[in-house]
């Protein structure tokens, strides 16, 4: 297998312990939860997900895990391969502002907040990142590419090169990447990813995704049963939680919701689609503003949201080659990341969601310095304008300083939609 990182120069990793970081995370999380509780009508077992997202219990649980823990970023990494090696995958994309500040001691201000926030966890040796034995990073954008290089001083980093498009030649290259990753995981964990193991884990994740689709359909039929933030909370806990337990709890949640009646009158609330750059706990600033103002986030196409659980891997037959092919296709083709040269799939998806969920307006989260999403927002805006679908773009980052200004814009946008 070809090495991507030669590592000719290795540096002593910069580390800095920051006191009170865990408390700060907890406080930020509790602020969100307080705001989410104000909505009223929350599913009974949502408290389970609240506890997972706070992270303390899960952290201790993972600390006691004797096997390998493998971190990853974005929606491109097949968790099937990690589970098949009896390792645990943990998604490391972070939305915590305090670790951005930690990172700014060494990296400049004008760098992607998501990358800095995630790396800040590594610098301060806290949270899940510290428990990871290796990390897998795809190459969707420049900040992530360079994060690969920086992180390689800290722990083994494996790179998954994302093709620039979804053509058949790109798909072949991508399949090779997936195959290399499989070998890499086998070497590292000293576990053979047998046909049988692969089949089992494909089924396991398929079960999770199917269950998620069930929840998705319940919300589509009645978006008011559960708030948009609670929906994202359920999705994002799956990044860290024990997969079997998450499945059990979410089965329970679906059962519970299918028995519930409508909480709000149809069309009582304005239905919002949130799209754009990833929104990751605890950075729910924009979501809190939208729902605190009485609108409902009924759907999203976020890679930190629906995109991360919606794709299905369905091999035609359980041979290793066919299964790896299905994994490769499943993760590449379903992505609507702006890293692809032409991204019509994303525009199609947004238009579909607007129709399916009878969306009143689109709010575009443009994370500062997230250039690919920022550039795409212009095109989407014009396409939506032609179709007379209002869209509001919010440029922001992880800090809280612009909360009031964002509130004014969102409020004005909602007043405009209410007419």
């Amino acid at each position, binding site marked *: 297998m070809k090495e991507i990182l030669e590592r000719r120069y290795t540096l002593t990793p910069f580390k800095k312990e920051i006191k009170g970081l865990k408390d700060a995370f907890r406080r930020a999380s509790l602020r969100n939860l307080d705001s989410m509780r104000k909505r009223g009508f929350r599913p009974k077992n949502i408290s389970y997900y609240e506890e997972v997202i706070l992270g303390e219990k899960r952290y201790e649980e993972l600390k006691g895990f004797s096997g390998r823990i493998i971190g990853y970023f974005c929606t491109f990494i097949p968790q099937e391969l990690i589970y098949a090696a009896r390792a645990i995958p943990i998604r490391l994309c972070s939305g915590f502002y305090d670790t951005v500040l930690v990172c700014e001691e060494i990296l400049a201000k004008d760098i992607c907040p998501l990358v800095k926030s995630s790396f800040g966890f590594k610098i301060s040796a806290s949270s899940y990142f510290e428990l990871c034995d290796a990390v897998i990073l795809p190459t969707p954008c420049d900040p992530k590419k360079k994060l690969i290089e920086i992180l390689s001083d800290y722990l083994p980093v494996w790179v998954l090169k994302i093709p620039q498009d979804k053509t058949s030649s790109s798909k072949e290259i991508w399949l090779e990447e997936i195959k290399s990753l499989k070998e890499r995981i086998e070497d590292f964990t000293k576990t053979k990813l047998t046909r049988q193991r692969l089949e089992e884990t494909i089924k396991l994740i398929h079960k999770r995704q199917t269950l998620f689709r069930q929840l998705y359909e319940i919300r589509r039929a009645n978006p008011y049963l559960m708030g948009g933030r609670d929906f994202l909370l359920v999705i994002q806990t799956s990044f860290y939680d024990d997969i079997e337990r998450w499945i059990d709890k979410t089965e329970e949640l679906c059962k519970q919701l299918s028995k519930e009646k409508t909480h709000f009158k149809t069309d009582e609330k304005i239905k919002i689609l949130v799209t754009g750059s990833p929104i990751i706990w605890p950075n729910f600033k924009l979501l809190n503003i939208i729902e605190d103002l009485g609108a409902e986030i009924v759907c999203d196409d976020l890679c930190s949201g629906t995109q991360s659980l919606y794709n299905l891997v369905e091999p035609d037959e359980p041979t290793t080659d066919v299964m790896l092919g299905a994994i490769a296709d499943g993760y590449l083709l379903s992505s609507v990341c702006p890293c692809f040269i032409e991204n019509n799939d994303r525009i199609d998806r947004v238009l579909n969601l607007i129709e399916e969920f009878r969306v009143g307006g689109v709010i575009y989260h443009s994370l500062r310095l997230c250039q690919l999403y920022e550039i795409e927002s212009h095109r989407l805006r014009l396409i939506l304008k032609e179709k007379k679908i209002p869209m509001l773009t919010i440029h922001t980052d992880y800090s809280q300083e612009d909360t*009031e200004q964002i509130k004014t814009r969102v409020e004005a946008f909602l007043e405009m939609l209410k007419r």
Partner: protein
Amino acid sequence: MIVCGIDIGSVATKTVILKDRDIISKSLALTKASPKLAAEEALSKALRQINLSEKDISYIVSTGYGRRIIEFGDRTVTEITCCGRGATQIGSPLGKIQTIIDLGGQDSKVISLDEEGGILDFVMNDKCSAGTGRFLEVMASVLEERIGDLGEIALRSNNPVRINSTCTVFSESEVISLIAQGRNKEDIISGICASIAERIAGMITQVGKKESIFFCGGGARNRGIHRFLEDKLGVELYVPQEPEFVIALGASLIAIESLKKI
């Protein structure tokens, strides 16, 4: 039926009191450090002028960045909605208003209206102060001129300088170095006004350019910016008589409509 609209802006707080649909009083107070005090001051000033007290007012709508701070309001509405409402009421000799430019103290906004005067789209610049009244204030103080005189001074220049910086702080040092280079004050002021006009013209492109444009907010009193905007956009702009009261007027009209719904 007496109602009131209060627009608590970052620089000034404006109040309009309506009886039925006629303006019977209005007032302006500087917001300074306490939007709450400014709102109280503006309201009591407006009431004193007509010998009324707060209990005579049936409904108060507050708007502007400080809209949630006051305790005596009945409803809060954003300045964008109020601006659209106020401008539609005032109207324009240029025909049905299609676009509004509001140049306020802390932000500037461009609002696009539909056929019925409803808001179709808007963009706001509020993350940075370049292109706002605050920018003019900083520049006026550097150049030791009164903010109200900048527009007239700008019009006297035949050779405006080009201000390259897009940030107030950097523009300030840019202006200081222009002074040090011995550049003519009129040309510098003219360049400042042109740079604000350029930013606003960019916002107009974002919402889609329309012919009938209404220009309001305190910044609309600056004739230099007004002229540069007309040059850049290639159309005439209409500035109402008291451009800073448009949003407060809109708030007071929404107060009437809210009362009717009760």
